[in-house]
């Protein structure tokens, strides 16, 4: 199953480390992919957005320029109309002026100027100031008037009428008309355009949220600006000089680190320049709501990436993890494991590895079984060899004794000896069982002691002492007989007096102890050391050594045979065995 763990212990560090690496790589790869997509998206769309902004900006600038140009053409035609009215019917002029100013709210006032530029009273509702000369005003450009026949002023406060200080843009038109005497008169017509109306017309043109349009004269003086009041009062600044003298056109530029699209259009009638500016928005410039949504979307992408990373790393490392678990099991010498190759589908390399490992495990398991079987065979053969070693030697001596008894007409002795010999062989040869009870082993030992006692003509006495619990324990066969044989040959045989052999079976803690004690002549330290480790001189030691080896082979190094001996006092041989009950043996 999917586990949200990256380290569980030294044993599985490699696998978990791999999962971590795979998850990390997948996560980084997905984040990198998202980042690259966003980057590509940004560069591609930023440029598209910029071009779009520029197009829009040019369109807005051009539309406004056209609109203003058309507007002044219209105002010029108003002046021309007034001129025509003066030419045809000077009496109708006042009506024409009244009619026009009332019809058009954008026209603040219309005045007729004499040849010196002084307004001629026409509209009695307006109190014309005396001593005003239009041609002498700062805002009236006489050069334009002579060159083009008209002049359109910068915004200014009109001071023609008492108590009125309106901001206007003035058109002064050079007029010619024929008076009632047929004399051609020269003068002017003044049309004042309400600056608020002009302002409203310009304010409608807005290229974008942050964009704006402003108009300057050919020298960079502001005609219209959305923040005109602030500019006039020095509360704001606009770099109008930047476009002075530049040809009409559009493009991109930077100001205060911000990139903007601009377009410049010159109005033919006035020479004014309409400058349209729009700051470029970054693709990633969002308002608060969009930022909020974007964070949520990125969080979802991150969470999905993490989930994909974990799932993919799980599938990639699962097989390796399983394989490692299997390898861990073999540490406990357990090679009898069958791997289910269906569990190793992804990736293919791990499947092949698992297949090879499974094959190897099979091979190892077979080899181990083979070795075990061979060891068992070896032990059996050793046992048989031992038995074979004991039997002929002993049989010869015993039969010799029986012959001797028979010759001396000791029938009872022959009977006892023959019966004991029969018991001895029955226990050692006829049974196939490796383990026998302590009772049987003692019986075997007793048969041997009876035979030897007869053979050695009562040179020793013997006794068997068994603790009640020890009788039911199981032991491997023929343990006591070699020890008794050793006690007789090395302890009793050389004694002048009658010897004594005691055989004991007792339980000490978790161990079963079998002891053979004699009061014979004892052994030197050297003889003691040699008895278990090296080949004894007279060959009888082979049996003792065999007993020790068999016990250790079967039960381990902590079990075996120990000798304690004192010269002229006697020897005790002790076999230490595990307690095995009959059920366990089965």
């Amino acid at each position: 199953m999917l586990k949200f763990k990256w380290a569980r212990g030294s044993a599985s560090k490699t696998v978990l480390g791999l999962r971590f690496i795979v998850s990390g790589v997948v996560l980084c790869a997905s984040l990198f992919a998202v980042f690259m997509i966003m980057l590509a998206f940004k560069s591609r769309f930023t440029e598209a957005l910029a071009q779009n902004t520029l197009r829009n900006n040019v369109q807005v600038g051009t539309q406004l320029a056209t609109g203003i140009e058309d507007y002044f053409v219209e105002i010029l035609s108003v002046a021309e109309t007034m001129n025509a009215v003066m030419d045809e019917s000077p009496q109708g002029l006042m009506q024409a002026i009244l009619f026009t100013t009332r019809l058009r709210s954008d026209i603040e006032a219309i005045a007729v100027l004499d040849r010196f530029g002084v307004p001629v009273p026409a509209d009695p509702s307006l109190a014309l100031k005396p001593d005003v000369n239009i041609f002498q005003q700062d805002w009236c450009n006489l050069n334009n008037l002579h060159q083009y026949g008209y002049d359109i002023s910068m915004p200014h406060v009109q001071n023609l009428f008492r108590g009125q200080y309106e901001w206007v843009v003035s058109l002064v038109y050079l007029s010619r008309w024929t008076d009632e005497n047929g004399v051609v008169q020269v003068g002017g017509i003044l049309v004042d355009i309400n600056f608020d109306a002009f302002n409203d017309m310009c304010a409608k043109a807005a290229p974008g949220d942050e964009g704006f349009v402003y108009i300057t004269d050919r020298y960079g003086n502001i005609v219209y600006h959305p923040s005109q009041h602030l500019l006039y009062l020095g509360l704001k600044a606009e770099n109008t000089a930047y476009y002075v003298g530049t040809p009409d056109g559009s493009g991109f530029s930077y100001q205060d680190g911000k990139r903007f699209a601009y377009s410049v259009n010159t109005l033919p009638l006035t020479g004014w320049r309409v400058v349209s500016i729009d700051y470029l928005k970054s693709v990633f410039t969002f308002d608060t709501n969009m930022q909020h949504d974007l964070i949520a979307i990125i969080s979802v992408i991150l969470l999905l990436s993490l989930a994909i990373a974990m799932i993919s790393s799980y599938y990639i490392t699962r097989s390796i993890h399983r394989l490692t678990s299997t390898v861990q099991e073999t540490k406990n010498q357990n090679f009898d494991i069958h791997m289910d190759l269906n569990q190793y589908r992804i990736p293919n390399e791990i499947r092949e590895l698992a297949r090879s490992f499974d094959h190897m495990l099979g091979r190892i398991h077979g080899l181990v079984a083979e070795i075990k079987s061979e060891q068992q065979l070896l032990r059996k053969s050793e046992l048989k060899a031992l038995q074979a070693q004991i039997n002929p030697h002993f049989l010869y001596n015993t039969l010799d004794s029986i012959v001797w008894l028979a010759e001396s007409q000791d029938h009872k002795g022959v009977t006892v000896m023959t019966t004991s010999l029969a018991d001895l062989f029955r226990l050692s040869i006829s049974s196939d069982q490796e383990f026998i009870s302590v009772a049987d082993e003692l019986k075997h030992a007793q048969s041997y002691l009876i035979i030897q006692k007869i053979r050695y003509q009562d040179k020793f006495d013997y006794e068997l002492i068994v603790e009640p619990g020890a009788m039911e324990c199981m032991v491997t066969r023929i343990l006591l007989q070699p020890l008794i044989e050793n006690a007789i040959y090395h302890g009793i045989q050389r004694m002048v007096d009658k010897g004594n052999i005691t055989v004991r079976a007792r339980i000490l803690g978790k161990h079963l102890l079998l002891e053979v004690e004699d009061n014979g002549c004892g052994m030197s330290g050297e003889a003691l050391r040699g008895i278990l480790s090296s080949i004894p001189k007279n060959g009888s030691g082979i049996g003792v050594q065999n007993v020790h080896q068999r016990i250790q082979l079967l039960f381990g190094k902590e079990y075996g045979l120990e000798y304690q001996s004192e010269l002229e006092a006697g020897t005790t041989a002790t076999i230490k065995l595990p307690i095995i009950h009959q059920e366990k043996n089965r």
Partner: protein
Amino acid sequence: MKKTILFFSIATLLIAWYAFWPAKEQPVPAVYLLTGSGQAEYWAGIKKGAVAAANEYGAALQMLEIGSSLASTEITEISELLLRPHQGVVVAGALFESLEPILRDAIEKDIPVAAVDSALPLDGDYSLICTNNRQACQMLGRTIVQALDGQGQAVVVTWDIGGSLLEERVRYLKEYLEQNSDVSVVEIAREKGIDPHQQTKALLEKYPEVSCIIGLDGKSVAGAAQAITGLHRDIFLFGFDCSPEQAQMLEDGILTATAVQSPFVMGYLGVKNVLLDLDGQDVNPVTNTPVIIVNKDNMFALANQKLVFPFE
């Protein structure tokens, strides 16, 4: 596995909670503009400037006209309105004594305060936006000396300005005239609320040698103009500010010259300073606004008419 499912469930819930929780909008800064109720033209200019600044910087502007005396309930209401976070206060004109504790509280609570036109008699951190009165009086004084040819008697009339502003203007004018000419200020009508027309007439009768009247505000100039019209005396009238009425007087030659300030600029900078302060930016403690002296000849000059006849 359980831990993983738990982790992803919690993460999904958190994202869902975040996604459906409305985005926290940035609070719109609010500015309260406190103005007096007199001098309509002057307050209107300040209000227009304040509105322009609020629009420019995206702030909410609330305007309160404060009368000369306030009931205690009104003070409590104003106090509750003003002492809130994310907002500042612009006080225009002379100090309203009843507002003193509120403004002191506001300054102590680090609420940005800007004073327009007159300084507050309070210690503390606030920004002041005003005409440089010394400079304005020196410029007007120079014009007076030129017109009077360096000698004569002058009286000063006022209608609704008082306090530190009145004292400053009087002091700087007297200082300039005394140091640079023989023009002497014979009387200063400090008492507020007396009809300037009658006041001027009384002064002219009292001082037959007076050839110069200086009106410290629009209404006193109008009253003085009315008083001298039809008199067969050569009297020069000087003033402060320029309403369309005063502009007409300039054109008619009744008003010789006037010092034009820009209430629009004051209102604008007052709100701007408060907003900059709210934004944590440094604000100049004192900002001087432009002043020009206009007369009949230069009032329509392109540079001057921007200040004399502001856009509506």
